[in-house]
């Protein structure tokens, strides 16, 4: 069998990015929780917040370490496996990546040291500042990488021009060498899809972070261990999870409308929508791309038209307006998109139910529900990954999307044959993006090695995580109280609230 260097490189990228993406949402989501806990500790001086912060920092550090270890692979891989892509996008994409290093990675890594090792070395105030810096670092990091990725979906602020050699276009074997160059930096950053995508990514991170905390807290509650700690963590995380789950639905809707505007073939692949015209919303079916139609489709008539245009009979561009070689594969985006949406709906129902029970004060008696929360982190993570898979596979066959053109009335500017023909010079196809210097055998070797090592790392991660969870937070020596309005002014009476024998201040 002939090994395909493109397929292998794509598989390797998929493997390494999906393994990596287990960790950033956890750290981004948990960094927010840490800022909250340390802020509350400084404000109220209640021991429970300090104990909680110390516990979650330990978990945070484990996740962060694997995020760093698996993240560095990504940065190297553009050059090792996608050299032609790197030459084409370096001027634009490289800048965002370098900015991520300078603005985000230093901030995170340097202040993480204070977070983990600094408890006895710096004042609580400085520790709090360090926590904020780590949280900011993780947020900055997500901004720059989503800028770079969004530009690949909806290029803006850049143009594609011939590479010059001695002032002349560089031509090799009759082919003019081209690349993307920055024209307008701010337009590049605020490219059309960036805003909706970064919000959706953040919400996804908050959901994962919150459900991670919920899972561990629910497990403590079921075991009857660290109950006070677990109840507080659970309540806080539940609020975050409820708001984030609802927000994901809203943000997802607006993001999908942007996708339709700039990448109609991608939305058509998400929805298994083949024939241009008024469109039903497929709930579940089997997209048969060879036959260019859905099979066994259960659909809401006019649903997709309504979601895209707010009208049930408005036509929606289908895959039939694209040549077969320009269509993204449908099967993977269709099902991963459905998985994401289904899980999202499930999480909304789950968090609303739990919030209602919590409000009535009977939540912790529903053991079955706590078990659901122990396990719910898994679908929450799957949904995050599925969303990315849908987004990136839906962009195919492009690695840098060639823009679609629209007529004045908003319909797709199709050619004489009734299909839209992309301008090949305005994008880069994935198939043309790999490294010419690298053989399929080399990629197979590295792919297998990464696969084996990631299984190992995943195992070690779970083992250490489990060990830390079993050990649990330190016992609380002073009973905690719930906050009243007086606490608003507690900073005026710091001395009164400062518990006796608190050594961490000195």
């Amino acid at each position, binding site marked *: 069998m002939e090994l395909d260097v493109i397929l292998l490189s794509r598989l390797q990228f998929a493997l390494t990015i999906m393994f990596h993406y287990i960790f950033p949402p956890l750290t981004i989501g948990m960094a927010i929780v840490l800022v909250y806990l340390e802020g509350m500790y400084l404000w109220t001086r209640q021991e429970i917040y300090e104990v909680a912060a110390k516990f979650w920092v330990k978990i945070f550090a*484990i996740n962060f*370490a694997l995020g*760093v*270890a*698996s993240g*560095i*692979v990504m*940065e*190297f891989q*553009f*050059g*090792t*496996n996608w*050299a*032609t892509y*790197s*030459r084409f996008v*370096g*001027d634009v*994409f*490289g*800048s965002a*990546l*370098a*900015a991520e*290093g*300078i603005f985000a990675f*230093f*901030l995170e*890594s*340097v202040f*993480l*040291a*204070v977070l*983990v*090792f*600094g408890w006895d070395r*710096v004042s609580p105030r400085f520790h709090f500042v360090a926590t904020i*810096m780590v949280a900011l670092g993780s947020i900055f990091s997500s901004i720059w990488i989503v800028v770079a990725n969004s530009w690949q979906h909806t290029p803006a602020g850049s143009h594609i021009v011939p590479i010059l*050699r001695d002032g002349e276009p560089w031509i*090799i074997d009759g082919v003019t060498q081209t*690349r993307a*160059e*920055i024209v307008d*930096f701010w337009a590049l950053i605020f490219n059309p899809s960036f805003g909706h995508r970064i919000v959706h990514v953040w919400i996804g991170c908050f959901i994962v972070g919150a459900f991670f905390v919920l899972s561990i807290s629910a497990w403590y509650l079921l075991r009857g261990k660290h109950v006070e700690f677990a109840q507080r963590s659970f309540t806080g995380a539940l609020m975050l999870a409820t708001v984030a789950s609802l927000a994901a639905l809203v943000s997802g809707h607006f993001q999908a409308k942007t996708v339709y505007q700039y990448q109609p073939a991608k939305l058509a692949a998400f929805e298994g929508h083949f024939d241009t015209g008024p469109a039903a919303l497929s709930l579940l079916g089997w997209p048969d791309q060879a036959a260019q139609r859905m099979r066994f489709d259960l659909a809401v008539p006019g649903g997709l038209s309504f979601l895209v245009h707010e009208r049930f009979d408005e036509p929606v561009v289908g895959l039939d307006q694209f040549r077969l070689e320009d269509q993204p594969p449908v099967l993977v985006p269709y099902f991963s998109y459905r998985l994401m949406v289904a899980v999202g709906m499930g999480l909304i129902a789950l968090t609303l139910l739990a919030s209602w029970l919590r409000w009535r004060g009977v939540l912790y008696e529903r053991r079955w529900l706590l078990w659901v929360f122990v396990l719910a982190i898994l679908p929450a993570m799957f949904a995050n990954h599925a969303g990315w898979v849908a987004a990136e596979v839906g962009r195919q066959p492009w690695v840098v999307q060639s823009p679609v053109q629209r007529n004045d009335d908003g319909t797709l500017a199709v050619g004489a044959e009734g299909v839209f023909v992309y301008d090949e010079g305005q994008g880069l196809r994935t198939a043309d993006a790999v*490294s*010419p*210097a*690298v053989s399929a055998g*080399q990629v197979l*070797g*590295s792919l297998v*090695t990464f696969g084996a*090592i990631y299984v190992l*790392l995943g195992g*070690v991660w779970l*083992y*250490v995580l489990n*060990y*830390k969870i079993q050990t649990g937070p330190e016992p609380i020596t002073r009973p905690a109280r719930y906050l009243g309005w007086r606490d608003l002014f507690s900073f005026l009476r710091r001395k009164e609230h400062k518990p006796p024998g608190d050594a961490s201040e000195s």
Partner: protein
Amino acid sequence: MELDLNLIWFVLLGVLIAGYMVLDGFDLGVGVLHPLARTDHERRISLNSIGPLWDGNEVWLVTFVGALFAAFPEAYATVFSGLYNAFMLLLLALIFRAVSIEFRSKIQHRRWRSICDWSFFGASLIIPLIIGVAGANIMLGMPLDERGEFIGSTVDLLTPYALLVGLFTVALVMMHGAIYLCLKTEGAYRRRMRRWAWHCFGVFLTLYLLTTIFTLMMLPQATANFHDHPWGVVVVVLGVLAIANIPRCLHHGRMGQAFASSGVAILVFVCLLAAATFPNIVASAPRPEHSLTIYSAASSPTTLTIMLIIAGLGMPFVIGYTVVIYWTFRGKVRLDEHSY
């Protein structure tokens, strides 16, 4: 006078890789010397001497790679795809190193800790070795085609000269790391490390002389830039003085000064590497006309300007809080409940 943005970025990349080699250099050295620690306590002292710092140090490499991608994408693409196998090995080493440092002390199991110790050692050895081999090949020149694509095979890159430079780099970080450990440890462990600092210096000096001789013999272009810019000799003299100062300081027990001297020596070696390649960023051999220069490999002037603004805004902060962290974790290593 017009700014030569390409030259500025060539220098800035030098600053980033020098920052990496000076800062991560000592924690790589600590890794290579790790098997010399005899007890679990000593190993933990070793690990915790770099505990709060190594991750931030590694970011210098990450930022170097990002800046190379942004400023000289042609060079980034050529080197990273051309040295595919070497860079995959480098990645594995970076992964294993991070995990073994971070997770070693989290599990109370002798076998586990021993695995982590050896993986920490191996990874710390491989990283400077590969960096040295890669640096040598960038100076020597690699077979490139008209588009700047690497057309050789990985095995061809392992020339005796490249391996010599690789070993030299390992010896350099070992010496740097041994001096660092003298700064951070106490008692018997420190006395042993001080002896080892001498051994490392001996090995380093031998390899330094060999590397210098072979470079002068094999790479006439390495010194070509000194003909046009004779003032560059100042750098060479500075390097020799810094190296000569190390045994003096070791003898008098002035470890801080010894550490500064070995840091300066590393800076000088990065300068010499840059001088040996300039104006190329990746030399091509046997077809020198395919070499990637700091002009042909670069991004557009717009991007280089934007990047310069980003670096100008960001790097002062980076340096500022790096200093704060080194200050916070100054002094001898103390183990507490939060240590590795």
